[in-house]
């Protein structure tokens, strides 16, 4: 048998294996379940809304807040500085273009505690580091940051700091979300373009 024959036979065997693989999958979890479980049960993966409020107020550049709700919900209200990646888009493997930056803390949030925690497991399964959720979601944000008021007789220094953060976060949240839709939308789109576009090709 000549080289061509052998080579063709080898390629055909490999091609046959490939044809049988469920490759339409495109992507799957890359680490083993036993390795993932302790990662997703780590208490450090939670941020309280107050911690997130502090990030927002200080305009911390080492955090990236990711809103998993639909674009419509995002347009209605969103946390200042967050980017919108709807949960169903995230399943189409939008993660890579968002979470590539190793040292930045990525904080997921949704309205409640479901989508954000699914997303955390997915990101963990793909072996991304520095992933967190905002516990309680936007509902908890409203409950704590937007609607709480101080009731009591004396205020401690710590409580005072907490309330100041909340008040400032509330102000920023209200200012951003009171903007007309067109302006908010523009902000979202520029964010999106910056995070998309892969490098490559001959251009």
């Amino acid at each position, binding site marked *: 048998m000549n080289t061509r024959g052998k080579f063709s036979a080898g390629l055909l065997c490999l091609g046959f294996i490939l044809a049988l693989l469920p490759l339409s999958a495109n992507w799957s979890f890359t680490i083993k379940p036993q390795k993932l479980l302790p990662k997703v049960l780590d208490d450090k993966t939670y941020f309280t809304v107050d911690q997130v409020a502090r990030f927002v107020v200080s305009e911390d550049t080492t955090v990236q807040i990711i809103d998993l709700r639909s674009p419509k919900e995002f347009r209605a209200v969103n946390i200042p500085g967050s980017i919108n990646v709807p949960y169903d888009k995230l399943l189409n493997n939008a993660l890579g273009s968002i979470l590539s930056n190793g040292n930045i803390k990525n904080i997921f949030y949704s309205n409640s505690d479901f989508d954000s925690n699914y997303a955390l497991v997915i990101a963990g399964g793909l072996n991304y580091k520095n992933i967190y959720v905002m516990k309680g979601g936007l509902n908890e944000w409203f409950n704590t940051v937007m609607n709480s008021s101080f009731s009591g007789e004396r205020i401690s220094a710590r409580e005072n700091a907490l309330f100041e953060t909340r008040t400032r976060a509330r102000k920023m949240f209200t200012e951003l979300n009171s903007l007309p839709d067109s302006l908010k939308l523009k902000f979202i789109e520029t964010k999106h373009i910056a995070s998309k576009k892969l*490098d*490559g*090709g001959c*251009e």
Partner: protein
Amino acid sequence: MNPYLAGTMLGMVLLLAMFLSGRGLGASGGIKYCVVSIVGAVDRPHAEGSIYYSKYFEEGKKPLKNWLTLEILGVIAGGFISGAISKRLKFKIEKSPKISKTRRLIFAFLGGVFFVYGAQLARGCTSGAALSGMAVLSVAGFVTMIAIFGSAYIFAWFFRKNWI
């Protein structure tokens, strides 16, 4: 070297490029960056004013400090190493004995003009669009490949005197 073996080697290099930096191979892009930097050096205001060149000079970018430019430098180095190993290093004009040297060089020049012009239009040459494109199953890769080889087969008849 056996063509199938050489092809496997080339495929491995392409796979390595995909694995390391998520991109394919390319040659015409590097040639373009050379031109862009030459134009930028000779006539900077023209380069910055033109809709085509200006995007390569935004934000103080340097067109020579680019993936594709470095890649074609590597191609030249790699070709040289291989030529040295196989003892093929020699200055010569390769041509059919039936045509003159001048004719060969004129056609080589024209071929270069056409090829790179077409590659700029199609956003990649045989390596950047056809080979790398096919390796990621892109439709653009297959269409470009068929267009290149199809048209070359048709034109082959007109230029047959140059070669056989």
